[in-house]
């Protein structure tokens, strides 16, 4: 019996391994449980998704060299979201899946420094230089935003807003899907816009 489970598990794992390079986004449909992961932050502390059971979690893919990320950080838009929702109990993780040597990669020290310099306020910046979690979630761009509800279900997968540009002037005109979804979740409502095309630079995987 146990053996059967093991073999099925291995087959499933094998299936996903085969599937993942072809359809990196297919593993994370909205409405399904968000896949678990553990990653270190810049201080070396490991964060597991399961550590934050019962909390609303935001995953933000980050690359400070990318003009689209600059749009949301130079304007203070991303920091404002991190602070506003952090104060309401939302756990916000920024994830860096850039490989060493590629744009956006930061050593743990550089990461800590950058957080201070940008006055960013995520719970932590998680380091994913192998790109494992990025590929697990199908992170396509920086930024690419995911929201997990208090039940552990992925409820949003997509862009930060609806204006695909690098211009900070567009932020005020855009519909911010992350803000909309978080407000709805905090009010105990269903998320109305559950997905949108993420826009930005490609994730600099290895």
């Amino acid at each position, binding site marked *: 019996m146990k053996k059967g489970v093991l073999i099925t598990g291995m087959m499933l794992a094998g299936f996903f391994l085969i599937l993942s*390079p*072809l*359809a*990196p*986004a*297919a593993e*994370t*449909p909205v409405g399904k449980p968000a896949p678990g992961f553990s990653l270190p932050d810049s201080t070396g502390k490991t964060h597991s998704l399961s550590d934050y059971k019962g909390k609303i979690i935001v995953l933000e893919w980050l690359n400070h*060299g*990318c*003009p*689209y990320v600059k749009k949301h950080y130079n304007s203070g838009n991303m920091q404002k979201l991190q602070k506003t929702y952090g104060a309401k109990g939302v756990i916000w993780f920024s994830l860096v899946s850039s490989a060493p040597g*590629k*744009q956006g990669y930061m050593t743990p020290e550089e990461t800590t420094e950058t957080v201070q310099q940008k006055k960013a306020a995520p719970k932590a910046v998680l380091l994913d230089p192998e790109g494992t979690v990025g590929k697990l979630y*199908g992170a*396509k*761009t920086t930024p690419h935003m995911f929201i997990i509800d208090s039940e552990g279900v992925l409820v949003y*997968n*997509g862009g930060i807003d609806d204006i*695909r*540009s*690098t*211009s*900070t*002037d567009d932020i005020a005109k855009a519909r911010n899907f992350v803000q909309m979804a978080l407000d709805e979740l905090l009010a105990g409502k269903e998320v109305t816009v*559950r*997905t*949108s*095309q*993420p*826009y*930005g*630079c*490609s*994730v*600099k*995987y290895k």
Partner: protein
Amino acid sequence: MKNNETAIKFIEARDFAPRDSFVLFIVSPNMRTNRFGEKTSFVHAPCLRLVSFVVFLVSVTVLTGCKNSEPVKAQLISEFKSIQPGQTFCVALRLEMAKQWHTYWKNPGDSGMPTKIEWHLPDGFHASGIQWPTPQKIETPHDVSFGYEEEVFLLTEIQAPDAVKSGLSVEIAARVDWLACKEICIPGQANLILNLPVDNKRSEPNKRWARHFAATRRNMPQRFSDWEVNASAKNGQIFIHIIPPPWFKKELAGISFFPEQEGIIDLSGKQEIQSSQDGYVLEVQRSLFTEKLPQRLQGVLISRYGWDKLGHEKALYVDVSLYQ
């Protein structure tokens, strides 16, 4: 965007601008407010000095732009050196990309941004939307984009009013924004100006560029009414039905669909073509990022055998109802 670290300022005047107006524009930047409502600070200071120097001392009108390491050079080119009142004429935004860099199509794909043109025209002039040549599919192991490498001419038709006076010169200005990527991405922008004399007797073709306009038009997706195309969606798949005309005797193979709309099709997904009762069906994967499919499907079908009898036209424009 004011902190314009990456913008390219490249203006070529020799083909259309009366020399004096160009010289005035370059030499007296602070005395003139352009159509963008700003003093002409859009010419990079070192670049400006260099250009002024060249214009003053050597008195040349042939400017090859400020050579720099920027990935894109932008330029406006008119198909006519002079225009007539009431004429519809074509203006190209020419983007020259450095080696391995690309700019984007209307649908940039998984990442990137379409090039944007904001026209600033004299009263009574109207610009149509951009006519986009068929793009290239640019693939990396992790994403798919649509864009242009090396060089592209993005065409726009501009209609002059009947009332425009002959003997005048009109200023056609555009604020252009693009994103250039080669692995990393750099946004660029330029404020470009063309001066076109109005002549009610004749409109003089711009021979220097005629070949480029012709080649660009040949590379536009075409509609072919003898090919019947329709589309349907079922269980997360989109099916594009293609019924060849009677003269088509070959096997349809190696077909790919470039969606013009963003976020409808999973661009990394497989596209498979199979024979059906009356033709072929191309099956494409629906994107994860759309919960509700649109009423219509727009895009380009690429065939390496071509869609016309000679096999020259590789891109078939599709704009059909999407039955669900």
